[in-house]
């Protein structure tokens, strides 16, 4: 009987040995590669995790990761808290009529491939962007820039068809008006792909394996001094558990809020890491507003009724959302733009959390009945769409659903992919959905410009009685050259959408960074889409 067990037992032992053997050989190999992450002795490398591949880094298109593009490419000017500052342009002059912008370029700047950065390079880049204008409809400058003239080697002039005040602001954005080495162009163009990704920025892309990782190494010839962090690796990891475990193990040592405003780990996990002692959490100032967007143009939906929108607004306890769901990391928002946004410091009626007032508003407007209210035989039922990948949106949706029930509104929740929600926004197939403003550098102008865009908030805004007036004023404010007129116009625009309650603000979102405790110089830019890695370093 003993014999019978011998063969299978041997098989088991061999299997076990084989597995163990694997782990041994793996260990020695691991020494070399995995240690390149957090535990390296040099301490001038950073590995950050990202849920999405950096994708196509072509700076004149929109598929690439913005944080990655932000460290490889640079623009003429930079948007800072103190306003527009020089970057690749040292100075500039604007003509009296506001149609000519003359830039004096920084000298001795070279692209990563060694090509010089000069007026000719600026012209080639801008011409490449302009020849693909239909993709850049969101940026008004693309429809007004008629010519880019080379004045001399380091002077370049932009000719506009009409004066346009946000010109410098739009030139400062991560894309498309940034510079790629003309050697990487294909037939003088960038719209059908490029041969390389050589920018002028502090880091160059040296390795990229799709859906696995991308490596950025310091540009030692960077005009503003070589960055101290010598190597930054973007590792593609699914958000949540995997990222959290990789952080604990030290394979990844840096995470931040991504381009879409999603964090790769939740607040609880962040706090746990900070408690463990190895990590610090750094949060930016409020960068954007997270909100519920109501479809005012969907005639058969209760969302088209301003009273319903206002009642819903009053029913949401934003303080509790801020405390319970975001552990106080995001503050409650009362208006579409927080008052630190340009032109947004406007007196607007504050809609407090007030269940009784919400009920009264509904009563007064004919929504009556026990349980779910009704008006003209129509039930007060609406659909609310949230991003299925965002745990905080789901929690908020459930909370709002419960609050709405208290005042007799029935909300049906649907978790969908971000692409699908974007598509609903475009087609108008929604009652309510979660969204966020574009963020500091883009607010208010880009978010407001998108009120008129089909792909963005046209369905949201077109159902209100003042729609015509709203669109006219948006058109005016974009081309107005007088500061006072602009202020007045923005005030009107913001008042209209606030009064109509088509954007129901929830919280002010910020960018969160989880980094090793001894990493210094963590700061933020004016945009929620980039981080200044070149300013970070490890303390010795």
């Amino acid at each position, binding site marked *: 009987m003993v*014999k*019978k*067990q011998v*063969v*299978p037992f041997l*098989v*088991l032992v061999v*299997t076990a040995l084989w*597995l163990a053997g*694997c*782990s041994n*050989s*793996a*260990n020695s*190999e*691991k020494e070399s*590669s*995995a240690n390149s992450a957090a535990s390296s002795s040099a301490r001038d490398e950073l590995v950050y995790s990202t849920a999405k591949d950096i*994708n*196509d880094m072509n700076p004149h*298109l*929109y*598929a*690439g990761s913005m944080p990655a593009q932000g460290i490889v490419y640079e623009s003429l000017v930079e948007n800072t808290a103190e306003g527009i500052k020089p970057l690749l342009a040292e100075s500039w002059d604007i003509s009296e009529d506001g149609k000519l912008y003359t830039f004096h370029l920084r000298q001795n700047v070279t692209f990563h491939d060694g090509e010089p950065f000069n007026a000719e390079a600026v012209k080639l880049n801008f011409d490449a962007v302009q020849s693909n204008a*239909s*993709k850049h*409809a*969101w*940026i008004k400058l693309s429809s007004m820039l008629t010519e880019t003239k080379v004045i001399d080697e380091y002077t370049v002039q932009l000719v506009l068809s009409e004066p346009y005040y946000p010109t410098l602001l739009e030139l400062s954005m991560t894309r498309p008006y940034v510079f790629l080495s003309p050697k990487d162009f294909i037939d003088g163009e960038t719209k059908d*792909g490029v041969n390389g990704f050589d920018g002028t920025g502090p880091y160059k892309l040296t390795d990229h*394996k*799709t*859906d*696995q990782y991308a490596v950025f190494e310091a540009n030692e010839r960077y005009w503003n001094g070589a960055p101290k962090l010598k190597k930054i690796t973007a*590792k*593609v*990891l*699914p958000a949540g*558990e*995997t990222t959290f*475990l*990789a952080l*604990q*193990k030290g*394979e990844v040592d840096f995470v931040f809020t991504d381009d879409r405003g999603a964090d790769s780990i939740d607040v609880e996990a962040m706090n746990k890491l900070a408690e463990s002692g190895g990590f610090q959490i750094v949060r930016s100032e409020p960068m954007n507003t997270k909100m519920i967007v109501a479809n005012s143009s969907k005639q058969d939906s209760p969302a088209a009724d301003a009273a319903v929108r206002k009642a819903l607004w009053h029913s949401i306890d934003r303080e509790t959302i801020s405390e319970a769901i975001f552990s106080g990391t995001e503050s409650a928002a009362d208006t579409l733009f927080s008052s630190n946004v340009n032109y947004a410091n406007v007196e607007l009626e504050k809609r407090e959390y007030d269940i009784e007032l919400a009920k009264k508003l509904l009563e007064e407007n004919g929504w009556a009945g026990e349980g779910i209210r009704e008006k003209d035989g129509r039930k007060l039922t609406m659909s609310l769409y949230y991003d299925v990948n965002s745990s905080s949106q789901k929690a908020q949706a459930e909370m709002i659903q419960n609050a709405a029930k208290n005042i007799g509104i029935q909300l049906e929740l649907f978790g969908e*992919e971000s*692409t*699908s929600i*974007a*598509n609903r926004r*475009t087609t108008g197939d929604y009652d309510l959905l979660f969204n966020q403003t574009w963020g500091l550098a883009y607010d208010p102008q*880009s978010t407001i410009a*998108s009120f008129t*865009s*089909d*792909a*963005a908030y046209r369905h949201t805004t077109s159902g209100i009685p003042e729609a015509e007036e709203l669109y006219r004023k948006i058109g005016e404010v974009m081309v107005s050259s007088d500061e006072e007129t602009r202020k007045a116009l923005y005030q009107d625009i913001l008042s209209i959408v606030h009064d109509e309650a088509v954007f129901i603000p929830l919280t002010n979102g910020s960018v969160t960074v989880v980094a090793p405790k001894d990493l210094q110089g963590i700061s933020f830019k004016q945009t929620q889409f980039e981080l200044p890695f070149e300013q970070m370093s490890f303390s010795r």
Partner: protein
Amino acid sequence: MGRYIFKRGLISVPLLLVVSFLTFILNSLSPMDPAEVVLHAQGVPRITDELLEETRLALGLDRPLLVRYWNWFLSCLRLDFGDSYVTGKPVWSLLGPAFLNTLKLTIVSVVAIIILSIALGVLCALREGKLLDKSIRGISFFLTAMPSYLLASLLVLYFSVKLDLLPTNGMDTIGSYILPVTVITISYAGIYFRVVRSSMLSNLNEDYVLYGRACGLPERKITRRILRNSLQVAVSVFCMAIPIILGSTVVVENIFAWPGLGTLSVNSILSRDFPIIQAYVLVLAASFVIVNTFSDMINAWVNPKLREDG
């Protein structure tokens, strides 16, 4: 034998045709405008009607559905599956490496599953009803029932984070294989070892076993005979495990950030990257057909009776 293979191959052609047609039709039934999907995927912030029209023309979406299917089908025969909507790169340049990565994972797992299933199956069959049999079946039942994401997270937490032995994710070293392979093996071996066990048991009651024992053959020799006969049933089951695992590594790949088919297919579905989805389904269907043919061939080779019937 040659004729047999040829016949099998011939049957699979209409099968793949139907699969490819269905995927194409189902994808085009999706309510989303592909031009809009492409522009969203490319991150274009503001989509104008003019741009939509331009994109539709560029994608050839203005042509009738059947014409588009036919063109797509013809280029598929040349292994050209078109370009990804999202990255603009050729589908094959994305699907190829992902397929290889998943194939590596699958083959190592299937080998581990086969070894473990046979070992446990034989052990349990020989000790049927005894404590060993019962406890192995009990434990395997428990492990198989455990969701693989939970098992994977626990293994990572213990072996990678606590003991610091293995990487938590990726496929950089041989060590990276251990945890994913363990998770897949545990989920499937618990099912497959039962196949080996029950077929061993049914063989144990065959007349030839009784005859062998009556003739005084050593128990070891009898066991070997039984094993050989029982494995025939297991061959086709094990072979089908290859495409099944190929198509179901999603969870494991996601947890271990394994850059394979599962991750790619889910990402493509989420971003509505139709060319990749179509190619993925086709490749998976083809591998089912190929492996199935292959397992029939092995059986036919082992058992001449099947050959005559076929």
